[in-house]
């Protein structure tokens, strides 16, 4: 569990975190959804002690602090940047980070074997990451984050620059980790990923949480009704309706439909409604 309480952080006059308060529950996949510059990565950096808040507090577990080395051991991070050494082999990377986290001997070797198996890179462990594809590098980055068996795993944009196949592989691995009892904090600006993976999602912009809940709940509360876009007799019309199929059937009875589409509410629309801007702005 990570609890953010009345957190504030500014860079000069620019406020990047504005009175942030929310709690990430144990064993959930929590999505932090927002455009670039929303304050997502700053929140993570505060959570792991890389940044000091201007005010407010962060609690890890029951009473832990990001500044405690022991409490930080509970957290694993797959950073947005590929934080791996390209001149070391994949295995050397994992052995290095394992030792930094205090692992040694057989425990270290077993964890390295497990991590390679988990991210399906066991056949490429002797290769240098410079010879990896983007997706493989992301998986190695993930392996570095989970090597020390943390309770909480923070994944910052883990699918940036990844092909669909690797992306699906990463999703499966995240679900497996969650099934194994890990708490996942998933930071993304891809609403499809948040919809697909997350138990709960917080919509963040300008350093604030605008809404938080399950995907269904957010859509139901803030998404509005489904929309039918129809073109009849060269005239286009946008109609909000609870039952798009019945509405289309009604329209068909009144005349000939040239073209139509149905848009169901999604997180994109929720975000637009809450912040007045599109997610990828």
């Amino acid at each position: 569990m990570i609890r953010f309480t009345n957190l504030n952080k500014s860079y000069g006059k620019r406020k990047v975190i504005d009175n942030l308060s929310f709690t990430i529950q144990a064993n959930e996949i929590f999505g932090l959804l927002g455009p670039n510059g929303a304050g997502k990565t700053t929140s993570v950096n505060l959570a792991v002690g890389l940044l000091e808040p201007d005010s407010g507090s962060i609690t890890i577990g029951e009473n832990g602090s990001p500044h405690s080395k022991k409490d930080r051991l509970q957290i694993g991070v797959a950073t947005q940047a590929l934080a791996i050494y390209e001149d070391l082999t994949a295995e050397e990377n994992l052995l290095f980070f394992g030792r930094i986290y205090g692992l040694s001997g057989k425990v270290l070797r077993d964890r390295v074997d497990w991590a390679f198996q988990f991210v399906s890179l066991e056949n490429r462990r002797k290769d240098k990451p410079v010879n990896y594809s983007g997706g493989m590098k992301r998986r190695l980055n993930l392996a570095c984050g989970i090597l020390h068996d943390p309770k909480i795993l923070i994944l910052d944009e883990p699918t940036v620059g990844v092909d669909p196949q690797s992306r699906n592989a990463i999703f499966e691995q995240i679900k497996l980790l969650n099934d194994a009892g890990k708490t996942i904090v998933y930071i993304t600006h891809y609403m499809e990923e948040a919809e697909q993976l997350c138990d709960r999602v917080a919509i963040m912009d300008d350093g604030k949480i605008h809404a938080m809940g399950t995907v269904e709940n957010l859509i139901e509360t803030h998404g509005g009704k489904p929309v039918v876009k129809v073109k009849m007799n060269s005239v286009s019309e946008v109609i909000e309706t609870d039952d798009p199929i019945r509405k289309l059937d009604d329209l068909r009875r009144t005349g000939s439909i040239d073209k139509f589409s149905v848009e169901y509410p999604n997180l994109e629309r929720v975000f637009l409604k809450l912040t007045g801007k599109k997610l990828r702005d």
Partner: protein
Amino acid sequence: MIQILTLALKDLTVMFRDKSGFFFTFIFPIIIAVLFGSIFGGDHNGGTRTMTVLIVDEDSTTASQDFIKQLDAAAEIKIVPSTLAVASERVRVGKNTAYIAIKKGYGDASEQMFWGDPPEIEIGVDPARRAESAMLNGILMKYGSKRFQDAFSDPQKMLQNLNISKEAIENDSDLDTTWKNNLSQLFTDLDRFFEFESNQIEELDSLPADNSTTSAENNVMLPLLITQKNVAVLKAGPINAYAISFPQGIIWGIIGVAAAFGISIVVERTQGTLQRLRIAPISLGQVLAGKALACFTAIIAIDIVLVTLAVTVFGVSINSFVLLLLAILSSAICFTGIMMLLSVLGKTERSVGGIGWAVLLVLSMIGGGMIPLMFMPGWMKTVGTYSPVKWTILSFEGVMWRGFSFSEMLQPVGILLSIGVVSFLIGVIVMKKTS
């Protein structure tokens, strides 16, 4: 501590894996040292080329001048005429390896082939330079024995020598009468023999010459009486040009390491590994300590590699291994500190690389990294005082040829340690603030 060692080991592995980095850190300095050493006549005294020796002619006779001519034509040494006072002083201050003094009476002694003392030669050399001394003895004996060779191959000259010897024997009042008679009889018989030989040779003069000669070394008589005068060297000059070029090579290696590690801290920051390390249960201090340890180790490694090469291959000598250790440690501490300071000069690899190399090149330029300190004009030497490069070179020159004592070594070592500690602290403080 394990984490710091792990970090250092990782950094060293990364450094050695980077081929271009390895080249500029370890190979380039060796090339610089060897190249500059060769350009400045590096092995002029390394045993394979001629040794420059001062020659003093105290006898000023035809025989002594003939001997000087022989030495002048010799391939093994190059002689420079001098006076005894000047020659002795030059050897004493280390400007020349040795002098040869042809003592008074050389000419007379040369004439007494079978009687009296052999001609006397004095060698003035530093007693520590045993190899040079032995070599010089050998060369002098070789050319000294030519006197016998010439005499035995020239019956006219031999006749003259016999007459001189006969006269000396007859005039010697200390010699027993029986011995006197016996020796006079022997020399009279020899006289007849050489007279006959002389006539034969005159007849054979028109025939091609026979080059086979009796080896001087087989002659039982001593060709020269060589005495050695020990001239204790006050401060030796460089034994060869490599003693100057290797300290320069070392500084280039150190600069390469400092620049590489300075940039590597920024690379860690930009590629995100520093973030991952700082999230890990280690402090920023440990991360920086690991980096500093790796840099320190790499500098010591390059120092050891170059010093070993200088000593074993290029004949550079070390006057004190304790002082050498001081030079190595102080230079490593100094440039580890500078590395830390360089790493906070910019936020990107390009800026730190650019600024770092610019700063290091200027420091090298004014500190004797490009032009040896001894060739610099006075004002440049003054400016160079502000460069740690100068003090590093000076500390290594101190043990390679300047013959520094412990107290003389304290100045460069103290300055290097101060620069290192201050730079390191500034670097760490700025790094902590900006991180």
